[in-house]
């Protein structure tokens, strides 16, 4: 693949041989570690991951039902000031997302003000009619947000996507750190790396904070998983364990008198908060998809009665829709009254005829995505696509322009990465996790850095062959 000149996390401007201050210790470490030592460390890390059973099922690939996500042992570092700016931007953005959801399911002021087109919200597949007029505890809708960021130079971070439904990946953030602590204790001694291990405590605290009023001092929270065959099941069980809560499937729960109970060996036990890793459509077969075997019949009646809280709330998918994304700067200004701290990638909404015409003319230089897609499926990376692929995609675009948005191909920053031939630059992104309860928003310093392991590739999704790195926020 052609390599796009890009900002490098270690060296700075494209082509620079200098080393940014925050990476000084990494430079020394790389210099004193021969290639075979590095590959031995990588093997050690792989062994560790495989034994503890971190696996990630890839849909449509039966042979790889339990494949490991590759882990790169060269960490990605952020300085204290860089992180502080990101943190402020993330908190601002999540506050706007929550205000937006409370508004569109409530008074709809933003629609009346003409900031976001009404039909884009009300006819959005992520807009959930069952939530109109509802108010989750504390008006918190997005309790756990995963915001995908990319960097293009020293100061510019762009938000690529907001994940406001059931963002995943946090187990990798935690496990990557554990592995690095084992592999390179000397670096932890040399640098002041801010810990991420408080995440489970913060998450539990967040879940407890949104318990229904009648729940008492010790609310019972559970994690609802679609089950073992879900691609993120490992993460579900990992988190339930760290949180010290039950990992339940739909069939473990039942609803009686608009209250949710779980079936235990000691009889039914009341449930107050459900951290659900199940999509809206599967939650309750009585209200949503009737063929869902994964949900809990009657769950929405308990939710409506205010007897159980769901995190995230139902109907948040409308906020992470990629067509809504293009309005985020306006949405942030509308609710917070201030300028967005994090940048939005310029976005052509193909539903608009002028934008569609431009996109069709410039496909080889654009990235085109489905508005409600995720995981890197169904997207076109123009600069890396062959002519027939582009032509086929153009036909899809013309048939359903409203289903797509297009963005310029960003030169994602690169980070030194261990490859077969030695250390080489590979493109990375960053997904920090923002927790929001009735007690405010909090972010553990770090997140999941995803890396495109193939030279020049810009697609970092694990389902498309991407790997992960540990992310260190360093106090200088």
């Amino acid at each position, binding site marked *: 693949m052609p390599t796009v000149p890009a900002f490098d996390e270690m060296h700075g401007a494209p082509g620079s041989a200098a080393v940014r201050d925050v990476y000084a210790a990494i430079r020394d470490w790389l210099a004193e570690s021969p290639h075979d030592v590095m590959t031995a460390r990588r093997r050690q890390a792989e062994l560790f991951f495989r034994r503890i059973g971190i696996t990630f099922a890839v849909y449509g690939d039966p042979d790889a039902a339990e494949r490991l996500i590759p882990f790169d042992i060269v960490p990605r570092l952020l300085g204290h000031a860089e992180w502080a700016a990101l943190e402020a931007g993330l908190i601002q953005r999540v506050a706007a997302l929550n205000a937006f959801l409370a508004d569109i399911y409530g008074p709809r002021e933003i629609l009346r003000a003409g900031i976001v087109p009404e039909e884009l919200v009300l006819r959005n597949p992520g807009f959930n009619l069952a939530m109109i007029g509802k108010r989750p505890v504390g008006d918190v809708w997005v309790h756990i947000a995963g915001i995908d960021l990319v960097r293009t130079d020293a100061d510019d971070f762009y938000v690529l996507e907001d994940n406001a439904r059931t963002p995943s990946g946090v187990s990798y953030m935690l496990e990557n750190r554990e592995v690095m602590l084992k592999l390179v204790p000397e670096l932890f001694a040399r640098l002041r790396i801010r810990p991420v291990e408080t995440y489970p405590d913060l998450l539990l605290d967040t879940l407890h904070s949104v318990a229904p009023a009648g729940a008492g001092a010790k609310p019972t929270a559970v994690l609802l998983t679609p089950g073992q065959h879900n691609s993120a099941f*490992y993460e579900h069980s990992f988190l339930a364990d760290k949180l010290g809560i039950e990992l339940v499937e739909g069939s473990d729960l039942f609803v009686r008198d608009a209250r949710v109970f779980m*079936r*235990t060996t000691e009889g039914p036990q009341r449930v107050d908060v459900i951290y659900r890793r199940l999509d809206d459509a599967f939650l309750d077969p009585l209200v949503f998809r009737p063929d869902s075997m994964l949900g809990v019949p009657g769950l929405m009646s308990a939710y409506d009665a205010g007897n159980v809280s769901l995190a995230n709330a139902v109907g948040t998918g409308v906020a992470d829709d990629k067509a809504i994304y293009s309005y985020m700067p306006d949405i942030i200004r509308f609710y917070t009254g201030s300028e967005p701290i994090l940048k939005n990638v310029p976005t052509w909404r193909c539903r608009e005829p002028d934008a569609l015409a431009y996109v069709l003319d410039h496909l080889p230089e654009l990235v085109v995505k489905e508005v409600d897609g995720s995981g890197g499926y169904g997207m076109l990376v123009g600069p890396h696509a062959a002519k027939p692929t582009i032509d086929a995609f153009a036909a899809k675009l013309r048939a359903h322009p409203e289903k797509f948005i297009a963005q310029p191909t960003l030169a994602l920053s690169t980070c030194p990465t261990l490859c077969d031939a030695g250390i080489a630059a590979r493109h990375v992104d960053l997904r920090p996790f923002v927790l929001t309860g009735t007690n405010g928003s909090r972010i553990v310093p770090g997140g999941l850095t995803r890396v495109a392991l193939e030279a020049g590739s810009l697609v970092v999704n694990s389902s498309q062959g991407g790997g992960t790195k540990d992310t260190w926020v360093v106090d200088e």
Partner: protein
Amino acid sequence: MLSRSAGNLYWVGRYIERADFLSRLIEATLRLAALPSSYGGMTNAWESALEAAWMSDGFVQAGGVADEAGVAAFLTVDPANPSSIRRCLEAARANARAVRTALTLEGWEAINGAWLDVQRYGTGLDDREALVRLLDTVKASMLAFDGAAHRTMLRGDAYWFIALGSAVERADNTARLLDVKYHLLLPRGEKVGGSLDYFQWTTILRTVSALTAYRWVYRDSVKPWLVADLLILNRQIPRSLASCYEEILRRLDQLSTASARRGPAHRLAAAGHAALDAAKIDAIYSRGLHEFLRGFIADNNRLGAAIAEQYLF
């Protein structure tokens, strides 16, 4: 604890025990089949192993040849045999994975490691050396799991349900093994004996790792009725029916103390335990060893069903 989790843990215990039993059975059969043919009687050691594992019908249906290569592969790595070691470990791992959070890292690693190891053998065995290596690996992994559970698990519901599953399965395995060989264990006076039988008795003892124990307990040469006494009534042998029921009752006691509830499973287990406590080997023989074992296996199955019902798996 979630009822589904309790069920998963109980089956982890059962499948681990079953895989372990199969490994030991095959190992004992290898030894028996290695005897010079001059000791040979009518029975084929590999057919008899299939019977002891209660898999003769499945084997015939699969169209296998009852020799070492055919039977050993069928009992160990055959993915089409739902009771092969491979499938037992698969089931143990699937159950363990569903309750990954209830196990310790060490416990999970033992099960996952055993599963990974068996995967490596593929679906056929190259030679006897591969078979022996596989059996050693499985036995070591199962010991590692027991050790991990013993050393690292919280003594609570999760631990007790695994132990309960193991004990129920172990009782079943011992009873089935004895039942298949019951004609060898008939008392003096019946028309049995001869050197082949002697090796078969010792094989039974080896299968349950009790040959040395036998000598310590009875200080006598191997006599068939004493073998039966040892494996049914002796509470010092961890695989005897009496030991298994002692264990089952203890685990159910612990579970019911924690929840302050007793149910039908408890009553069945207490009755089974009391019956074994009061039993004398002579009386068992006079009523018929085969009938006794058949009755025991049926009761044990009822207990399994009652446990599932009481804890709502």
